[in-house]
């Protein structure tokens, strides 16, 4: 489990080459200009990154969760924002592949796998985030269609995506009354809020998704009525491992930059790396990232095999990895002194980008809630 296969090494090498050539050189400009590089995403899709763990019959890459984690870590070394968006997109593609019927799979999965079409995951609402089971967007059956009303908040990719996977309420029975729907872009009544101005993740849009009498065919319901919350949470298990892998990648890149900088920068008559306090900071970053990576691999393995402790391990991996990644980036900024605070050195962007990983896909407090409850239930 701890030794990568030849195939995995080749995959990591290819993704690293792709990211170094097509993402890293432009990441700073995309962040500055708030540019969402859909053309580059389509290139990533051509290589198989749009449906990494989607089955092969409708264009998926049919790879493992560990493969996915390795890929996201590598992409994130070049740009956490792009890596994280691709991770959300993969979550949507997988949910349709896993819970959709063959008609739905045939209709959506191929374009999502090539990333010619992008997908958004719509759970959060202005009034409910952590307590997602309390969501209030409504879907009412009317003949052979559903009519959706409500607003989704903080939706990644909104305004650009071709399909919105919306969790909406079909009954007032808490989490058991939630159903998942596929809402195509361009449906009448579907609109988007303004681009949110934010601390990081600037190379991908975050907007409200507003539904006013959005009418979609019954055939766009994913799974049965009442199964939406389970589908949303199952998607998030993988999302958590992947976002954790993105944090490890960003943190690793900040660490690598720090090692190079401390070797080169001189103060008090010698390179800074000669200061043991700073060497220890490097040691801590290195150790915390390796712990996180180990946890990510273990959770990915549990997810792959569908073991009973999947939820717990995915929550732990997300908690450990998003904290380790942010801490490494923040320490890297300190180690770079004043230069770390300048955009040019690329460190402050990593700090800004990784900060939100501790908040979304279930905040790290919610991860503790999940882990704690399971620990007590035992």
């Amino acid at each position, binding site marked *: 489990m701890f030794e990568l296969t*030849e195939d995995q090494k*080749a995959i990591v090498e*290819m993704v690293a080459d792709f990211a170094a050539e097509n993402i890293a050189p432009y990441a700073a400009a995309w962040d500055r200009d708030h540019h969402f590089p859909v053309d580059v995403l389509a290139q990533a899709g051509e*290589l198989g990154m749009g449906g990494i763990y989607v089955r092969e019959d409708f264009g998926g890459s049919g790879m493992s969760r560990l493969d996915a984690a390795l890929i996201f870590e590598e992409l994130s070394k070049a740009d956490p924002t792009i890596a994280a968006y691709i991770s959300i997109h993969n979550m949507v593609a997988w949910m349709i592949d896993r819970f959709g019927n063959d008609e739905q799979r045939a209709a959506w999965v191929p374009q999502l796998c090539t990333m010619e079409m992008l997908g958004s995951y719509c759970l959060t609402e202005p009034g409910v985030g952590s307590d997602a089971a309390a969501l209030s967007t409504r879907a009412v059956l009317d003949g052979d269609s559903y009519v959706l009303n409500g607003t989704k908040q903080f939706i990644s990719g909104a305004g650009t995506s071709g399909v919105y996977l919306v969790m909406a309420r079909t009954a007032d029975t808490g989490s058991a009354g939630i159903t998942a729907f596929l809402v195509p872009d361009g449906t009448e009544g579907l609109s988007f809020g303004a681009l949110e101005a934010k601390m990081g993740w600037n190379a991908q849009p975050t907007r409200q998704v507003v539904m006013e009498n959005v009418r979609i065919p019954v055939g766009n319901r994913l799974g049965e009525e009442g199964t939406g919350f389970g589908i949303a949470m199952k998607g998030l298990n993988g999302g958590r491992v992947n976002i954790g892998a993105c944090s490890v990648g960003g943190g690793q890149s900040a660490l690598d930059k720090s090692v190079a900088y401390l070797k080169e920068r001189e103060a008090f008559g010698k390179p800074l790396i000669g200061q043991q306090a700073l060497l220890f900071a490097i040691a801590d970053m290195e150790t915390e990232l390796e712990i996180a990576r180990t946890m990510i691999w273990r959770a990915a393995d549990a997810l792959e095999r569908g073991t009973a402790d999947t939820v717990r391990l995915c929550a732990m991996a997300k908690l450990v990895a998003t904290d380790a990644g942010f801490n490494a980036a923040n320490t890297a900024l300190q180690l770079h002194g004043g230069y770390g605070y300048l955009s040019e050195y690329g460190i402050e962007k990593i700090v800004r980008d990784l900060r939100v990983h501790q908040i979304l896909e279930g905040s790290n407090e919610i991860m503790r809630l999940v882990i704690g409850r399971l620990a007590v239930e035992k």
Partner: protein
Amino acid sequence: MKIAVLIKQVPDTAEERILDPGSGRVDRGASDPVIDEITERALELALAVKDQDKSTEVVVVSMGPADTAKSIRKALSMGADSGIHVLDDLLAGADLVLTARMLAAALRETGADLVIAGNESTDGRAGMLPAMVAEHLSLPMLGSLVSAEIGSGSVSGRRQNESGTQEVVATYPAIITVTERFPEARFPNFKGILGAKRKPVETLSATELGGETRAASTVLEVSKRPARTAGAKITDDGNAAAELVDFLASRRLI
């Protein structure tokens, strides 16, 4: 149509490359082996033909130590159909004459209509090998092309230097060499990477290919490039610009 591409595994130019002073050979442990960039472009050209016509068969041929298998596998993951690896301890330190003879023998077995090679490589290079191979196989060679048109019965291309351009054409079987002016190679996709190990790679030894296995030439000595000496420093006392101009002019740089 069958296209054979001569790919060469070389030390990564992004890293420090070292010659072993004892043997005069490249220290292959010192840096990561990669497919020479120009031969990757040669492969890309072959794969572009295959994109248009799926019946095209692309075979990559390489001579080199055991880890050359990695480069062959990468070529297969990019889309080549099969590989031939000329591998033999007897061939360590092979010179041009020997390398060309071995590769020619391996190519003869493929029965390829078209052989594509790079015009030169980034490691020990003479830029002679493809011409020597062409001679062994009595093939017409279009060398150092900047563009190529691969037709069903013939290949044409353009060659360019300071004095002009040449339009050249040869009917199959033929050999061409491409320059860095050709498009960059594609990335292998995941399916390609995962499928590469199911594609056939034939390993051929020197004995199987026949003939003399010893290099006719020996490297007598290698010496390090002398360390760079510090350049002249101009301190600006008002005349710096003029001094700079004189310096550049004296070296015919302006």
